[in-house]
């Protein structure tokens, strides 16, 4: 970056350039479009120069990696010390089916587990519930009880591998099942590493896998913070997510702002509970999307780290530097993958994974090319995993920390995204805060508007999607189908029936009773949920008790 005198010279030179070299060039060859925009419809200028970073202090705005404000990365050595975790989101059919897929992925080099659950499980229903009809195992694994959890992790050493579970409304229950499973194997909870997504706010805003209304749901979340800090200290009880917000149609700026606003809301609730911020903040983790626009995405991660560090230290007064760190998982953008010419999705995923790596993610999932058709087939998921491995070992991008730091464009974008986020924070504040804004439908409307604008850009061919509205071929894609087996479904039903028949019904009833009372009162629900799980209560039974006490959420209508 240049000093003041140089800057004057740069400015002058630039002006000349515009009046001569550029002008002549434009006359001979006009630019292809009137405006160039990012995937988020953000305007991008022709050229970024030292003027764009003028007056901005390196130590203040960037800092060194591993130092406040962590813009360049949360560790001093980043991938030179340890590569990001290659953690492939997986799940379909029964626990046996998914256990097989876990082993396959571990064999092929994944370094962390990530569990996808089926719709009934996500919504707190057992496989044999009437709401679950037709939905068994189609988009994830069905887990209705601790027995399923045991099978899911059969022959997998949970003391050595970290497990991320994408579960939200019933997260405490599923976590309790994991803990009970570990307990049965004599693995102390202090050794367990992993994450439960448990981010209910983004459900109301984007993914819609809610059950209960906001207040009781937040209570359940803070219960996990409290419990985890004491009993499962290496576990991340939450993964504050922007991925789903982005998939629902938000721009990069909205994804950034809404995710961090949600994060700060969780911190507030933890503090209101009486927890000291440094007791739970170090274990808050994040989850961002990795979308198409390479530079915008990298800028987004950097802005996220900077904003979070500042807010945690200065607004919430956290003293422990570990509380200032934004640790994140990333997933490449599912919504960007096409049904047409699906092999091209391998290319898209590669670019997106590159963005996440250049952006400093701690953990990464890459989508498979058959994303627009089904959950990943075996070959497809292997290609996705190899994509990460090639990036890690062949591309050289992991050799140095924050390689694009200092790029005029990148730094300008990082700043722009940061400013946009703060504008959104103000707006949310005006609306009364995150939960009032949810009730008013603010996030949902912003997201729906962005989604509609994006689609209109595609319809008008303002935005080209290769294979979809240009470079189209009329061919039948070859996708190896993956079907959930009827046998798996029956086995699951049998298992449930048998468990209900053979469990100690008195113990079971008592446990649910005590849980009901705990939900009605103020006690931390986790120990009672654990007792219910140990008494062989099913997911559906426990959630039904909660539905009874907490009620069910009704969302505001917006489109």
């Amino acid at each position, binding site marked *: 970056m240049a000093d003041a005198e140089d800057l004057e010279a740069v400015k002058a030179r630039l002006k000349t350039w515009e009046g001569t070299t550029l002008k002549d060039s434009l006359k001979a060859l006009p630019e292809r479009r009137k405006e160039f925009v990012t995937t988020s419809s953000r305007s991008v200028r022709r050229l970024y120069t030292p003027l764009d970073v003028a007056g901005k202090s390196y130590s203040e705005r960037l800092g060194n990696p591993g130092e406040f404000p962590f813009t360049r990365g949360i560790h001093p050595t980043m991938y030179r010390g340890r590569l990001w975790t290659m953690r492939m989101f997986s799940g379909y059919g029964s626990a046996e089916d998914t256990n097989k897929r876990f082993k396959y992925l571990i064999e092929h080099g994944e370094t962390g587990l990530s569990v996808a659950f089926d719709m009934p499980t996500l919504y707190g229903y057992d496989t044999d519930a009437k709401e679950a009809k037709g939905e068994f195992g189609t988009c994830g694994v069905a887990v209705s009880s601790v027995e399923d959890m045991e099978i899911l992790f059969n022959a997998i050493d949970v003391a050595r591998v970290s497990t991320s579970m994408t579960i939200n409304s019933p997260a405490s229950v599923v976590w309790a099942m994991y803990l009970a499973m570990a307990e049965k194997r004599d693995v102390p909870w202090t050794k367990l590493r992993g994450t439960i997504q448990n981010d209910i706010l983004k459900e109301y805003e984007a993914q819609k896998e809610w059950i209960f209304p906001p207040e009781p749901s937040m209570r359940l979340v803070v219960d996990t913070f409290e419990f985890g800090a004491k009993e499962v200290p290496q576990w991340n009880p939450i993964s504050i997510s922007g991925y789903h917000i982005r998939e629902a149609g938000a721009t990069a700026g909205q994804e950034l702002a809404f995710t961090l606003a949600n994060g700060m809301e969780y911190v507030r609730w933890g503090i209101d509970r009486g927890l000291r911020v440094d007791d739970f903040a170090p274990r808050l983790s994040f989850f961002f999307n990795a979308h198409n626009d390479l530079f915008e995405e990298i800028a987004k991660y950097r802005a996220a780290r900077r904003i979070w560090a500042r807010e945690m230290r200065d607004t919430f007064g956290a003293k422990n530097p570990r509380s200032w760190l934004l640790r994140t998982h990333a997933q490449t953008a599912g919504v960007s993958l096409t049904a047409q010419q699906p092999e091209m999705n391998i290319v898209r995923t590669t670019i997106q994974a590159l963005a996440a790596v250049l952006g400093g993610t701690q953990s990464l999932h890459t989508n498979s090319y058959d994303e627009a058709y089904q959950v990943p087939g075996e070959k497809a998921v292997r290609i996705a995993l190899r994509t990460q491995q090639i990036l890690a070992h062949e591309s050289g991008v992991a050799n140095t920390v924050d390689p694009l730091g200092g790029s005029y464009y990148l730094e300008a974008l990082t700043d722009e995204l940061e400013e946009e986020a703060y504008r959104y924070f103000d707006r949310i504040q005006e609306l*009364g805060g995150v939960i*009032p804004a949810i*009730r*008013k*439908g603010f996030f949902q409307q912003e997201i729906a508007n962005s989604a509609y604008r994006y689609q209109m850009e595609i319809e008008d061919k303002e935005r080209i999607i290769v294979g979809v509205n240009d470079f189209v071929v009329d061919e039948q894609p070859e996708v190896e189908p993956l079907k959930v087996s009827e046998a798996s479904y029956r086995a699951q039903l049998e298992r449930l029936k048998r468990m209900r028949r053979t469990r100690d019904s008195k113990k079971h009833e008592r446990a649910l009773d005590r849980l009901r009372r705990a939900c009605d009162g103020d006690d931390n629900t986790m120990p009672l949920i654990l007792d219910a799980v140990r008494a062989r209560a099913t997911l559906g039974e426990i959630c039904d008790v909660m539905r009874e006490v907490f*009620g069910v959420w*009704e969302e*505001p*209508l917006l*489109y």
Partner: protein
Amino acid sequence: MPARRKRASSSRSSPGVSALVDSLLRGNKRAAAKLISLIEDDEPEAAEAMALIYPHTGHAHVVGFTGAPGVGKSSLINRLVRLFRARGKKVGVVAVDPTSPYSGGAVLGDRIRMADTGVDPGVFIRSMATRGHAGGLALATFDAVRVLDAMGMDIVLVETVGAGQSEVEIASRAHTTVVVEMPLTGDAVQTMKAGILEIGDVYVVNKVDLADADTLVANLRFQIEARDGWMPPIIRASALEDQRIDELADALETHRAFLASSGNWNKRELDRARQEILENARRLLAQQVRGPGTGGESFEALAQRVVARKLDPQSAAARLFQEAVGGTAQRQSRRAKSG
């Protein structure tokens, strides 16, 4: 209130419409839906259908709901539906949403709130778009209400858009008008729409679990006056308390009983009949004058003359009226002659 008859009469109606109406009177939902569409689309058989249906109406209690968008009308209605069903009543709902002035289309989303009641055989829910009609209702709204009335609904709830002058329109057509408000969060001073304080029979302050409602309730209490012997109650409601919905349902039933016993039911029906006849007359006249020539001077020609100051607007109208009435009289006598 007239006794219910069970067959569509009239030997001169088209078989299709008669059959539909017969079906309707037996409580068939598909028939009701088809008839409402017929009327909404202003099909040629619509007038005939309404003529067949009308004698079977007058039984249902029509309750209109007005209030700003987002205030929670749909949810309240959903809970009322469930409650009335538990009390053994059959319930109809007509929910109106605005038509886009640009595209002519509409997204009708009030039904979302009523997902769990739609499949109940004793419930019928219809969404309507305003289709260009100013105010918060569709032209066909109250005809649709009549269809549901004839079908056997004991109570029909009408949800308006909540914007414009919908409250005035609904107050003139419903038996009971419910005004739904909600307390504002924050420090903003809450102003209320002009006229809202004069047309409600029942006031609901909704979402009281989210903000302090005392000021709003006090304001309403202070400003609302008794009308025709009825003092509008103010009911606090929230999604968390079912007990309040009981209060609301009770208030509605009390108002209905009051209307019956005080003679106000008939008074309002008479007012409405007068209004409707006049409105229909106006519409018929407008149709006539703009229609194909009745042999006299055309509407357009008259307009030209008015602009040219050869004729004043009042005289032009009188001339048209003569034409229309005279023409009609002529046609009627012609028909009578040919039997």
